[in-house]
C-alpha cells in the first residue's frame, strides 16, 4: 500500500460550500433554467482552481516585494497580471466595505466602541490581569485547605 500523499489529498478535500455556490450560479440564470449536477460540481471545482491560481500569483507578487504576508494589494496585482483586471474595481469595493463593516461591528472586540488612548488601554489591561490573578489566588486558597486530606495518601 502506498503511503497517503497528504499534501495531494488536502488540495482535493477542501472545497467550497455547495449551497452558497449554487445560489451564486442561480442568480446569473433565468428562474426556469436547471443546472445539471455534474455541471454544478464542475463550477465549484473551477472556483477552487481559480483560488489556487490567484493565490499562487499573489504569493509571487508578495515575494517579489520582499514582504512576508500576502496583503490585499498583492491580490489586486495578481488579478491584473492574470487577465482579471475587470474584477479589480468590484473586489476593491468589497474590501473597503468590509473594512467599514468591521469597524462598526460589536464583534470587533470587547472594548470596541469605547475610545481610549493606548495608556488607558494598558491601565485597563493591568486591571483585568489583577482581577484574574485575584480570582486564581482565591481558588488556590480553597484547595490548600483540602490538602491535608491528600497528604494523608502521600
Amino acid at each position, binding site marked *: 500500500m502506498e503511503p497517503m500523499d497528504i499534501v495531494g489529498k*488536502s*488540495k482535493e478535500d477542501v472545497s467550497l460550500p455547495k449551497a*452558497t455556490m449554487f445560489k451564486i450560479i442561480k442568480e446569473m440564470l433565468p428562474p426556469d433554467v436547471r443546472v445539471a449536477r455534474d455541471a454544478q460540481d*464542475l*463550477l465549484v471545482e473551477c472556483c477552487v482552481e481559480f483560488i489556487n491560481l490567484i493565490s499562487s500569483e499573489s504569493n509571487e507578487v508578495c515575494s517579489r516585494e520582499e514582504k512576508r504576508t*500576502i*496583503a490585499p494589494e498583492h*491580490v489586486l496585482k495578481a488579478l491584473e497580471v492574470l487577465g482579471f483586471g475587470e474584477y479589480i474595481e468590484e473586489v476593491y469595493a468589497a474590501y473597503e466595505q468590509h473594512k467599514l463593516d468591521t469597524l462598526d461591528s460589536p464583534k470587533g472586540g470587547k472594548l470596541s466602541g469605547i475610545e481610549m488612548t493606548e495608556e488607558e488601554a494598558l491601565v485597563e489591561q493591568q486591571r483585568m490581569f489583577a482581577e484574574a490573578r485575584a480570582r486564581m489566588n482565591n481558588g488556590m486558597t480553597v484547595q490548600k485547605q483540602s490538602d491535608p486530606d491528600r497528604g494523608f495518601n502521600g
Partner: protein
Amino acid sequence: MAKADFKNHSLPSARIKKIMKADEDVRRIAAETPVLFSRACEMFILELTCRSWAYAEENKRRRLQKNDIAQAITRTDVFDFLVYIVPEEDLREEMNANDSLLYYYVPPHVGLWARS
C-alpha cells in the same frame, strides 16, 4: 459584460484560507485577504456561468450542462488555466465541434475521391 447586482453571498474565509494554505509555497495571509478572494470568486463564477449559459441558449437548451462549461473554457483565453480540470472527453467534444466547421471548406475533388 454587464455588472451583476451582488447580493452579498460571501464565501467563508476559513474555507478560502484552507484552500490557499494547501499550497505549501503560500506564506502568511493578511486577515482581510479572504474577503477579496470571496468577491473575486463570485465574479468569476458569474462570468463562467454567463458564458456557459450563452452556449446552452445557442443550442436552445434550458438546462446547463457540463459541456457548456467546457465550451466556455475553450472559448475564453483567461480560462485557459481550467483546461486541465475539465474531463478530456468534454474538451474533445468541444474542440471537435469547433473543428467540424473546417470540413465545409474541403475542396470538391477530395469529395469525389472519397466516393470512388
